[in-house]
């Protein structure tokens, strides 16, 4: 501060003031009595989110938001895309090419080859190039962010190493969204793709000759929050409670940053840290399930319990259909040992619920089975977020209550 208020030239004062925000505010300014400019208004860090039927009219318990993408450097060649799924179980922004009207430049490796990705999901894969975009959500911006363009006709040939992993989800219809916003507790969608090939990133000498490659971290598809100019240490999803029987829609907020503004304070939230895959332990039916996760991208509450009847209707046989609604207990333990005890959740009869209210898209008591071979997992989906404010802190980032990767609520 002392050097700031000394007899220095105006240009130096200005430079000092950039790094010392309070400079000039204490009445000692030597610049000739001009009033200091007011502090800039805080960045708008809140975007609305909604659980609705989605672009295919087939979604349940699926959270969506809108994202604006611009050609890098342009403020006019931009597009706002709705029904982007908000997913804490993946990393990175991925957009479906058929809904994209701006031409985003494809990212090029130092070899001159184009970069493409085979994104793996449990039920399939999504293939397409990595492009660069200036991304804006609420008032937050990430410049020249690597994003994936899924189903891009410029790269229509899927390499065998990618198509061999399952079913293609390269259209809005098969993907069930116009895109996906992966804001889980890590920066990158791969832990070691800079040194190991996983069949995830591909170098394309031509659009039809793509081979498995390693990629520098800076060129991989990151959680966009980590590249925002501000409020970049994580995010919070805030959703109201919903009646046990469900609702047509549910609206809430996605808030960027944790403890960076007055509207994203941790307060008394309990921090549960997660492992390198984003997992923690849940204790259910007297068993500790070490590979469990809380996930806005799961549309039900998924666990193995052979004592609960599953549904018989075609297409619903993975969901539970108990005779009466069950209330079950659950505890959650972070990797830091912190335990949240005595949570309860309801398991309704999926068939009855869906038949009773065919227009509903929000079902807090929709639960399904995991295969018996997955005895160590409890997957608590979007229903976990109903009636809560859930923070997801990104690895290596500090907040007032802990260091990511963690989940807090």
């Amino acid at each position, binding site marked *: 501060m002392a050097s700031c208020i000394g007899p220095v030239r105006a240009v130096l004062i200005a430079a000092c003031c950039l790094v010392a925000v309070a400079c000039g505010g204490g009445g000692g300014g030597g610049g000739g009595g001009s009033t200091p400019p007011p502090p800039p208004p805080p960045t708008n860090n809140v975007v609305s989110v909604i659980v609705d039927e989605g672009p295919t009219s087939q979604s349940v318990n699926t959270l969506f938001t809108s994202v604006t993408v611009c050609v890098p450097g342009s403020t006019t060649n931009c597009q706002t895309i709705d029904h982007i799924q908000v997913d804490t*179980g993946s990393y990175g922004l991925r957009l479906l090419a058929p809904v994209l009207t701006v031409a985003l430049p494809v990212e090029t490796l130092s070899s001159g080859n184009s970069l493409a990705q085979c994104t793996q999901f449990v039920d399939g894969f999504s293939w397409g190039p990595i492009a660069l975009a200036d991304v804006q959500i609420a008032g937050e911006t990430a410049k020249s962010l690597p994003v994936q363009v899924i189903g891009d006709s410029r790269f229509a040939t899927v390499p065998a190493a990618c198509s061999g992993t399952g079913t293609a989800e390269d259209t809005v219809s098969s993907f069930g969204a116009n895109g996906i916003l992966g804001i889980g507790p890590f920066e990158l969608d791969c832990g070691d793709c800079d040194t190991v090939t996983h069949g995830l990133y591909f170098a394309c000498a031509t659009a039809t000759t793509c081979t498995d490659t390693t990629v520098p971290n800076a060129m991989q598809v990151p959680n966009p929050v980590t590249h925002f100019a501000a409020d970049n240490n994580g995010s919070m999803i805030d959703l109201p409670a919903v009646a046990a029987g469900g609702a047509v829609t549910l609206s809430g907020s996605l808030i960027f940053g944790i403890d960076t503004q007055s509207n994203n304070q941790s307060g008394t939230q309990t921090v549960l840290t997660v492992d390198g895959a984003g997992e923690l332990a849940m204790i259910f039916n007297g068993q500790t399930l070490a590979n469990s996760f809380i*996930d806005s991208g799961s549309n039900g509450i998924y666990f193995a319990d052979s004592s609960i009847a599953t549904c018989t209707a075609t297409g619903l046989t993975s969901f539970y259909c108990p005779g009466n609604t069950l209330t079950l207990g659950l505890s959650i333990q972070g990797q830091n040992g912190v335990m949240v005890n005595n949570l309860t959740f309801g398991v309704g009869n999926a068939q009855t619920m869906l038949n009773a209210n065919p227009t509903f898209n929000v079902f807090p008591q929709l639960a399904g089975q995991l295969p018996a071979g997955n005895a160590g997992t409890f997957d608590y989906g979007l229903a976990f977020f109903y009636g809560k404010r859930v923070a997801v802190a990104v690895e290596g980032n500090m907040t007032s209550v802990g260091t990511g990767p963690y989940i807090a609520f």
Partner: protein
Amino acid sequence: MPIFRSGEIKITILLSAVLIAALGPRIAGATLGEPEITVQSDVAQLRASIKNSDDRASYRVHEIQLPGGTLLREFVAPDGKVFAVAWNGPTKPNLRQALGKYFDAMVSAPKPKFADRRHLQIQQGDLVVQGSGHMRAFSGRAYLASAIPSGVNLGDLH
């Protein structure tokens, strides 16, 4: 009393390797529903290594370590055929390789109602494919329901 002895495993693997070398590209590389020899084919095709081969009461398990860190397990019945495969790790394995002729049945199966990206449950005739997980942690399995040896607990196939 195991139905295979460890010496036999080594001989089988050795023989398989010799046969693979002899047959060369004529082995298309299939596994589910195919003879045990295709385990070696998978290892070659997937640029992997056999980490462990284990005799259980009524079947044998070959554990294949894929270069990206994922484990692929192939379960062999006493009749010498692969009746199940299971995987676990940061990425999915090449399922066209692991499921062989059953891969197309998996891909063409109708998508169940209210599917999300974290679960897979397919039943197409004799083929059952199940999966769960998320980015950075996938697990799943595929098996032929009619080929499971008697006494095998489905929960052990992972």
